[in-house]
């Protein structure tokens, strides 16, 4: 098992003939992902260089391929429209890679697409090592195993995964949830899924300053997952307060948002917090040994 993505997932790519879309489609296919086609309006009937069918609409793609998942590589003004189109066509799982989607577009999308799981936007996507990759992650650094990973960042995720893989620790599913203010899937949403996944026997959470997703995750862990070995990292301890933290965010979340607040929340929930990414494998091994 794994979460969100397995061998049976049928993936289409929206924006498959664009530069980014075609490059990453190729990488996803090479990784072994079951990519069944893609969508570019006006190019229906064509084939990609790799022989995949291109459709004019998501509906056509779903009818012809039975697609269950979509990966979206369209420019920011069209991202919400692409998500709505996927929802309307009955797609249950969407990854939106696009960076720079207006925050009100995402408010509208997440508020009106019940039942569709959205990862992102502004995210690297997700990977279930050995099963499939939906997004732009570098597949070769991952290794199949039992550790689930959730992160708000892209390259920091790769840093952490690289450390785990080099230490011989494989991963069940790694999800980059994205760094925007309004995202489809939060840490807590991922924790709920990991809690029911038999393959996942430990977790790594990579947070960073801003918002209160980490504090919410810590509260969820304390209540629902006290026995699961989990290690956290929080980036941005040396970031100055005030600049990137918006006025409104600080209000809604009270004192939440600082690295210290997040570290304190994790520790209060019994989750050790690594000072450096390189400490994560060791801390995780110790937690897993203690849990046995």
């Amino acid at each position, binding site marked *: 098992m794994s979460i969100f993505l397995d061998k049976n997932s049928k993936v289409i790519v929206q924006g498959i003939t664009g530069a980014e879309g075609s490059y990453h489609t190729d*990488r996803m296919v090479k990784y072994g992902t079951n990519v069944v086609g893609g969508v570019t309006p006006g190019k229906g009937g064509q084939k990609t260089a790799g022989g995949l069918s291109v459709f004019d609409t998501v509906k056509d793609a779903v009818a012809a391929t039975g697609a269950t998942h979509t990966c979206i590589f369209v420019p*920011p*003004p069209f991202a919400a429209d692409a998500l709505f189109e996927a929802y309307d066509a009955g797609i249950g799982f969407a990854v939106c890679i696009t960076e*720079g*989607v*207006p*925050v*009100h*577009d*995402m*408010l*509208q999308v997440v*508020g*009106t697409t019940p039942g569709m799981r959205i990862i992102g936007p502004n995210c690297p996507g997700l990977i279930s090592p050995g099963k499939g990759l939906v997004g*732009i992650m*570098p597949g*070769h*650094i991952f290794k199949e195993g039992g550790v689930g990973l959730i*992160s*708000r*960042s*892209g*390259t*920091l995720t*790769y*840093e952490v995964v*690289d450390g785990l893989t080099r230490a011989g620790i494989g991963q069940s599913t790694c999800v980059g949830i994205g*760094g925007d*203010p*309004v995202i489809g899937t*939060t840490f807590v949403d991922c924790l709920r899924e990991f809690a029911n996944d038999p393959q996942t026997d430990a977790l790594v959470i*990579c947070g*960073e300053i801003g*918002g*209160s*997703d980490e504090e*919410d995750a810590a509260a969820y862990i304390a209540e629902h997952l006290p026995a699961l070995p989990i290690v956290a*990292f929080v*980036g*941005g*301890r*040396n*970031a*100055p*307060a*005030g*600049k*990137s933290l*918006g*006025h*409104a*965010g*600080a*209000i*809604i*979340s*009270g004192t939440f948002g600082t690295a210290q607040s997040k570290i304190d929340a994790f520790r209060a929930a019994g989750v050790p917090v690594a000072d*450096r*990414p*390189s400490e994560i494998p060791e801390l995780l091994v110790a937690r897993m040994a203690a849990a046995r």
Partner: protein
Amino acid sequence: MNLMEYQGKELFRRAGIPVPRGQHAIGAHDVADFVERTVGEWVVKAQVLMGGRGKAGKIKFANTADEGRRVAEEILATPMPPNRQNPAGEPIKSLLVEEKLPIEKEAYCAIAIDRTAKKPVIMVSRFGGMDIEEVSEKHPESIAKFYVDTAIGYSPFIGRELAFGAQLDPGFRKQLPAVLGSLYDLFFRYGAKLVEINPLALTADGRVYASDAKVELDDDALFRHPEFAQWQRALPLDEDERLAAESGLGIRNFRRFGGTVGTMANGAGLAMATMDAVSYAGGEVANFLDVGGGANAERVRKCYELVVNSTGATVFFVNIFGGITRGDEVARGIVDAMRETTSRKIPLVIRLTGTNEEEGRRILAQAGMTPVETMDEGAKLAVELSAAS
């Protein structure tokens, strides 16, 4: 993009939110002219993005043209003094002259985006005119909130619930639902991240006005509103933002600190972790720099020059996790950048990983640079080199 008060009030006026009558003025002469032509009691307010204008003496009253000229000159004479969030202060480039209102009561209302609920949240408090952060610390129970279902939008019952929930003075109650309705329209129409009226004023004769205006627009939605381009050009960038923009970076991708270890990484998360690693190794960070995707020679050169020329860096720690970028390409980019630059040379410490990383490290070593294998190792070496220089 944060708007000045006069710009926010212009949007309020368009949305139908009552604002005091007034005039945006560039210099003391404009203020005197306006007061001369328009009989009344006036307040002259510095137009800046910083808070704390009242305490800084940047809001003053005037009833005559001479008074108007004098207080305008006083306000414009010095910039806004620094505070914790704005250590450089802020220059004052214009003023707002406004009708002085006979204010009886003040309240607070705002619409923001709640990340956890993934919904707009409307907030109302009976503590108007105070810093809302202070209110949320001292009287958190006083802030009434409503999370708006975006499929439904705003409806007047929300305003009624909030007025009662926040125990507003009865004078506000009848008018709050309409004010919030207009505020929600504005928030939605312009794709704002925050709209705030603090204070919302109730006058002796029972009228309600937005006495101040704070509007933060979503930079990612500005493409839909080309009409704001002129305002955007007029807004002050701080020094770091200006330097970043000149180097072709996003304005949030670069920030300076006082230290001696210059840093550059790809991705904000890794860039923050790089700073943390330098700090953990006992060094003082000179800057935050997220180079983004694709570290080609020109980009690397511009970033190197930015750090060398604008910070106190004595060493430059480059931390690139290749991911899908090829390590040998990044290495060539760095070597070419260092050959092309005409700026002063400081030692580079380069941590490079990803596809073809061995080849990348070989290229760097051949060019006489110091490639390292891990972030911790790189941070340690960079701190040692900065201490030695």
